[in-house]
């Protein structure tokens, strides 16, 4: 088993979904059941492999890459086909292979208009390959390729299966992120040419740690990456694509977008920007931290002004990713641990919130908060699930959100030695204020949608039913994880800690 | 005969006559080429083209590529020109003079043509300056092919360049079928 995983595991888990998508192309469009089964089997197999990785992973040496695959790829630019996972990649990989099958189960009876499951499901599988690939790639060019693969399916998912404003939203999403990618690839090339080794191998680059790159150059290169990753995160003020994309995307798209796609940006910071360019990171860290905290407060204030539930949840992502970025900007082991935990927690929680919002949209045909109400009466279980997710999202201890938020705040009290302590402590206090606002908007939303009595237009609506089987199957694992991670955070911290310590050491060593 | 010819070409004494021959051929070719693109008679254009192609063949001879020269004469002068003439006939092109063979882009064409010419000339002159022709590369092949360049060429085609050759064959076949399919009257 270990040998098999060593040799083939990562290649299989990356390309199984793609293979599934190809098989689906060969099956005629009409046999929808077969299509769905193939998609589920492919992503299920990836999930099984993910579980095998979780079981076989050597947690004691989570700081070093494991299951490394290293093949020749594009020799002319010295780019190799390198895959590998460590403690930072593994939780995100696991999150991805978990979310996608759940989304597929949710889609079983729930293909958004205008239908065509064949195209829809194969796009999701293509997306999965892109996401997994990004998390396991250990070569910059390979990373970039996977990073960009993700864009296309998401563009089509929003543009074809989205809401009324889908064209605007999808184009905005595509252009905005592509703009960032352009700067990012320039930075990658600069890194290639500037470093002594002339390599894209991330292992070597991490070992080098920007040793041979001048400080000003590092700052410039980091700036390019900051745009590329920062837009994806998104950091204030580059977030405006997010609410539109989320609001217009179909439920499945929103869930994947919130759960995994946003993490590509933060993952990039942790995996690439920080350790490769320590001095650049140190120069940029205060700026990132300030923007992150602005994002926290700003996102929360914006949430308070929203009238559409999905848009509110989207803005809350801005605030939550602000906590993650603040933690990253401290450049400490504590902060990076918190950031990775925050990514996983945010993926689960906001993913769930979007699931629930999607299901509400199916039932109420609107997400206008002022029109909703009394969901605890008409669909009590859905209402309780929304309540649990809202509580988790506002960082309630005992649920997963807390372990992303509190350590993030904590880490800002004592940032890396070369950073300005007073600044970060001020930011810590402001960020803590953000938790109050978070409670405010989430509970405000919850009170207006779920408490009270149902408004007249929905009072006897037969379409408003409680949670159905497919929803239960796809939601239960996420809900369980939200609770379990809340009480056993070491499940994640055990994986991330050695790797995060190594990255923090690299980011502050230069 | 061939051996004599080669030895003749190989000598330094051949330089001057060869240069004179080249000059004459070149002048003819340029004039003919200009006529190809300026004449207002389609059939004449085809005939001027024959002159150019022939000149190219002669140039090949000057460059000691006799097999290519023969090929040039046979295929271009023989086959392709005939094909063109057939094309002219089949499209009922006016056999005499006609006024509207050119469009309104003549100034642009002249500018672009001169631009390309100037650029290439500049690059070529700057790069190769007054490099003499040097047939030593041929000599390397001669050792294998017993002083026979045609044989060497065929050896090269069927050994080192076999795969491109096969691909070209397939291309020709495809072109053949394609031409039939396109031109066939259903």
């Amino acid at each position, binding site marked *: 088993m270990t040998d098999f995983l060593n040799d083939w595991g990562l290649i299989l888990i990356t390309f199984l979904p793609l293979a599934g998508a190809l098989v689906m192309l060969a099956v005629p469009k009409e046999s929808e059941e077969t299509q769905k089964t193939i998609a589920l089997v492919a992503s299920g197999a990836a999930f099984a492999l993910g579980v095998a990785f979780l079981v076989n992973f050597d947690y004691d040496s989570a700081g070093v890459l494991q299951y490394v695959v290293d093949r020749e790829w594009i020799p002319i630019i010295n780019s190799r086909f390198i895959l590998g996972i460590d403690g930072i990649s593994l939780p995100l990989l696991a999150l991805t292979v978990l979310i996608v099958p759940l989304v597929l189960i949710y889609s079983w009876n729930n293909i958004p208009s205008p239908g065509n499951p064949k195209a829809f499901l194969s796009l999701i599988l293509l997306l999965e390959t892109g996401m997994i690939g990004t998390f396991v790639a250990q070569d910059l060019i390979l990373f970039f390729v996977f990073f960009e693969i993700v864009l296309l399916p998401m563009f089509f998912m929003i543009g074809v299966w989205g809401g009324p404003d889908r064209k605007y939203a999808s184009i905005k999403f595509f252009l905005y992120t592509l703009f960032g990618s352009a700067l990012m690839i320039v930075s990658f090339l600069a890194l290639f040419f500037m470093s002594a080794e002339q390599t894209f191998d991330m292992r070597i680059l991490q070992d080098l740690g920007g040793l041979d790159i001048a400080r000003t150059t590092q700052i410039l290169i980091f700036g390019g990456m900051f745009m590329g990753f920062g837009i994806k995160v998104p950091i204030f003020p580059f977030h405006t694509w997010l609410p539109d994309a989320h609001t217009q995307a179909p439920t499945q798209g929103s869930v994947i977008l919130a759960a995994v796609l946003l993490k590509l940006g933060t993952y990039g910071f942790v995996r690439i920007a920080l350790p490769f360019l320590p001095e650049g990171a140190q120069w940029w860290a205060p700026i990132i931290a300030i923007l992150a905290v602005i994002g926290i407060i700003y996102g929360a204030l914006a949430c308070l002004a929203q009238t559409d539930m999905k848009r509110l949840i989207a803005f809350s992502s801005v605030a939550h990713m602000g906590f993650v970025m603040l933690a990253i900007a401290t450049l400490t082991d504590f902060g990076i641990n918190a950031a990775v935990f925050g990514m996983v927690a945010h993926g689960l929680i906001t993913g769930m919130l979007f699931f629930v919002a999607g299901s509400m949209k199916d039932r109420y045909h609107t997400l206008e908060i002022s029109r909703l109400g009394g969901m605890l009466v008409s669909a009590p279980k859905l209402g309780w699930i929304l309540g649990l997710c809202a509580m988790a999202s506002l960082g309630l201890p005992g649920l997963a959100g807390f372990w992303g938020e509190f350590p993030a705040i904590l880490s800002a009290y004592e940032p890396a030695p070369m950073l300005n302590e007073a600044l970060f402590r001020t930011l810590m206090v402001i960020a803590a204020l953000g938790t109050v606002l978070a409670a405010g908007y989430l509970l405000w939303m919850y009170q207006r949608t779920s408490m009270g009595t149902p408004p007249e237009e929905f009072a006897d609506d037969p379409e408003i039913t409680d949670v159905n089987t497919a929803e239960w199957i796809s939601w239960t694992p996420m809900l369980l994880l939200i609770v379990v991670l809340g009480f056993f955070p070491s499940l994640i911290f055990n994986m991330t800690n050695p790797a995060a310590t190594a990255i923090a050491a690299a980011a502050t060593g230069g | 005969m061939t051996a004599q010819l080669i030895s003749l070409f190989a000598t330094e004494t051949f330089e001057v006559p060869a240069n004179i021959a080249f000059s004459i051929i070149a002048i003819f070719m340029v004039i003919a080429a200009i006529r190809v693109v300026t004449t207002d008679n389609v059939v004449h254009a085809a005939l001027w083209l024959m002159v150019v192609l022939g000149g190219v063949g002669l140039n090949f001879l000057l460059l000691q590529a006799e097999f290519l020269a023969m090929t040039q004469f046979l295929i271009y002068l023989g086959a392709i020109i005939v094909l063109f003439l057939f094309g002219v006939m089949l499209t009922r092109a006016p056999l005499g003079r006609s006024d509207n063979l050119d469009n309104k882009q003549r100034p642009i064409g002249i500018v*672009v043509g001169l631009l390309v010419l100037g650029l290439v000339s500049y690059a070529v002159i700057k790069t190769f300056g007054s490099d003499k022709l040097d047939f030593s590369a041929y000599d390397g092949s001669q050792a294998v092919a017993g002083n026979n360049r045609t044989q060497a060429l065929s050896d090269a085609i069927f050994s080192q360049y076999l795969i491109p050759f096969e691909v070209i064959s397939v291309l020709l076949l495809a072109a053949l079928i394609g031409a039939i399919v396109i031109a066939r009257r259903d």
Partner: protein
Amino acid sequence: MWFLTHAWIIPALMALSFLLILFFGKLMPKKGSEIGIAAIGIAFILALLTAGSWYTHNNEEVEGHGDAAAMADVQEGCSNEVDHLAAEDHGEETEDVGDHEGEGRSDDGGSDEGTDDHALGQSDSGEYAQSDSGEYAQSDSGEYAAPAATSTAVASEGEEEHLTRPVVRCAAWAEIGTPGSSLITWGTMVDGQSVLMLVVVTLISLMVFIYSSEYVSGDRRYTHYFAFLSLFSASMLFFVLAQSTIQMIVGWELVGVCSFVLIGHWWEEKPNSNAALKAFLTNRVGDIGLLIGVAILYFAAGRSFSILDLNILAANGGISHGILLVASVCLIFAVMSKSGQFILHTWLPDAMAGPTPVSALIHAATMVVAGIYMVARLYPVFFEGLSIAGSSVNFLAIVGAVTAMFGALLAFVQKDIKKVLAYSTISQLGFMVTALGVGAWTAALFHLFTHAMFKATLFLGAGSLSNAAHHSFDMVNDMGGMRKVLPRTFWTFIVATAALAGIFPLSGFWSKDEILAGHGSLFSAGGNGTYHVMLVMLLIGAFCTAAYMTRTIWYAFYGEFRGHGTPHESGSRITVPLIILATLGAVVGVLNLPEKIGPFTFPESISLQFEHFVEPVGAYFPAISHAEFNIPLAIFSLALALSAVLVTYLYYWKGAFKFLHGLSERNRVAGLGKTILVNKYYFDWLYTDVITGFVKGPAARATNWFNQHVLDGIVDGTGKGAVVAGQFVYENIDQKVVDGAVKDTAIATSEAGGVLRHMQTGRIQQYAALFFAAAALLAGVFVVAIG
């Protein structure tokens, strides 16, 4: 001992009960309430057994001496400081006693155990470097030596001081950073304080569970109600057993969310859900203080969340005074919100929108004392940070005293019986906070203990009243004359009221008096400072307490019945808990009888049992000075309470005096003759019109107005302002400026495309021309560049 090391079973049991009720409750014959009652019953028995085994443990003779021996029951890895102590102790055993100069000469011979304390006190950095990591020795070895010296000094005073031996068990929760640098643990820290809370929480919970099974029967969310009651108990127990501050945060917020759910139990009505939101959000504001305070302490203690670490370091000067001050002020903000202290108390009266048993359990007896408990738990931080000893004013004491006084004033103007009790709770919590603020640690916890009993009785009694009065809590309009129809409720209410007012010899008297005595040397010796201002404020508070409770009794139980229908006594599941709690509220005062009252001395076996049981002695607790029982003060406060009752009694019951006044007007001689008698009624007039009138009129109304308009207004205004600001930011900055920039870029691109599309003519030859020209130009650039 088994119970002390396995205390985690108690919260786990309640959590299990929560899950069982949640998933299977609806299938059970009694809709899940039986699971809850059974679970809390077992938990209560376990808590009692734990208390018993703590009593034994606490009285055991200890092998060995000093702090290291006292900490022998602390599991390794739960506290860095204790581990250091143990290592130190162990190291000493193999070290020559005389070798204190750090020469490093080691002797494998016998150790002299008798000098361990001494050695600990005098150990210098050289020795530390030997037994500990270098970092530790560098940071605080010098300061560290001081505290141990304190305990040595105590021990050497002659009588052998009995050190408290907390039982700590923990498990790793998460590890962050390089191995060993920061371990986040969760576990149980069992000592007198947590055992006390275990008993209080399980006892009140048990009573409330039983009471609720009748009180909310027929409710449509009966099952959910019991599920969340169970979850609340679990969270509260989790909180009180907390071994690390981060575990405290978890428990703290979990009880908050249970409070949210239960206040909003009838969320169909908007006011209820508003109240729930207000409670949660106000608490969230205070939580900022908690989060920041914990963060500061975490780093100050060298990356440790362990409560023992924090306490040992704070008590021994291992953390600088400035940091402790900042941390304690932050934490006091958390106390303000959770324990309803001025200025964050406004949520508590509103929280009465929840079911009455919930108010009794959460908003009177247990959750709201979490703040008190937290301060008591981390007492060295506050004691050192606020310099409680030897001063006459500090932030904690001011907050408590102001709350105690103004909270009590507010209770006068309430018509709703539950709101009276709510303000009363605020005021009493203020007493506890003040007690902690002036250094009367045991008094605070003792008052917490007694208050839980009688205040729960009062709330449950109010519930019983409203059961009779058609679910109304309006005592002015819907009650009256209830003493005849609800005798059991009436008598328990009277007893609890007397206890609350501090009437001798009920429990409230003892606990309140201990607090008052703790304020320092106004009448006698003892105490930690001279907190005279606070003492006066508390006395005013105590006076008002007695008065408003008497008023409440008048409205609820006397006069004519003003409601409609026929009121009836509640069933036994309501009255039995009432009787049990009232009895306890009456008698638990004897648990902490003073050593001597004037000439009379209580035997040691019955005096100060509570203090001995609860208050820690040792390195993890500051050396506080205990006040003695203060006879003049006790008599004064008792007189004050009785006079308050009297004044109120005269005002309400004796309104008939007015016709006598009229009589004297008709008869001038009689009137003149009565003048001297009337003098007696000058007091009456003074009390009734001036003092009581002023207190219950303008002062209370002004306070109420201030409360409702200014304080509440700020909260509301902040919320509204945030929405307006959000709207403004969203509309003007986000949509126009930030998003506008993006849109303009797109428009510019589109315009450029509109211009460029004319180039696409479809004519191949133009393309060819363009292509060649462009290629030539580009190649030209290339050539020139290379050339």
